[in-house]
């Protein structure tokens, strides 16, 4: 089965350090999403891209978070500097273009980030 690959699966870092999370979307999917999951807030959409262009990053704290797609096979989410409140599970998801997103997204297994 085609899958969305996220690395690393787990990350523990100290406050103030830079964190980079990576996502490899399914080949041929041109829409990529970043979600954050916490107990308090549930699933929050941070940003999404279509054809590598950012469409909406209004859910992302701009001062410390940045999301990019250097190429069609890689999406990155960076936090600099990281803070304890950033501790969460970060999910990447991808979807086909056109009407393909009608069929739902495919999620990766997530990166569990702990900032101490």
């Amino acid at each position: 089965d085609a899958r969305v690959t996220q690395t690393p699966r787990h990350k523990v870092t100290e406050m103030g350090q830079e964190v980079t999370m990576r996502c490899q979307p399914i080949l041929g999917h041109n829409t990529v999403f970043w979600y954050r999951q916490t107990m308090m807030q549930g699933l929050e959409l941070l940003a999404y891209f279509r054809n590598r262009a950012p469409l909406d990053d209004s859910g992302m704290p701009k001062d410390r978070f940045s999301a990019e797609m250097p190429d069609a096979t890689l999406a990155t989410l960076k936090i600099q500097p990281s803070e304890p409140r950033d501790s969460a599970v970060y999910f990447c998801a991808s979807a086909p273009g056109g009407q393909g997103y009608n069929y739902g997204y495919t999620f990766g297994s997530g990166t569990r980030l702990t900032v101490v």
Partner: protein
Amino acid sequence: AQSVAQPEDQVNVAEGNPLTVKCTYSVSGNPYLFWYVQYPNRGLQFLLKYITGDNLVKGSYGFEAEFNKSQTSFHLKKPSALVSDSALYFCAVSLLGALMIYNQGGKLIFGQGTELSVKP
């Protein structure tokens, strides 16, 4: 504002009994509705969707959901629950339909999730 509500944080069901996980939505335009399931330490998996047509949609693992436009609901159901159905379930709405502008479509808004526990 568009939103999705799952009024129950947890649903407990005995194995073999029918289950219902509730979802209501508030959107402008015609909603596209989805259910996802999340097993521990895993990403979300797509279960089923309503786009148009028959109000009762069938999905994976024997689940089905009924779209009710007048009640703005999309409840998830299964006639006979299994212990292996225990997981976190998310309802989601996609802002499509009336917003059929390519670049603006496809963004999913999720409910808070309902934890389903099926006991033997």
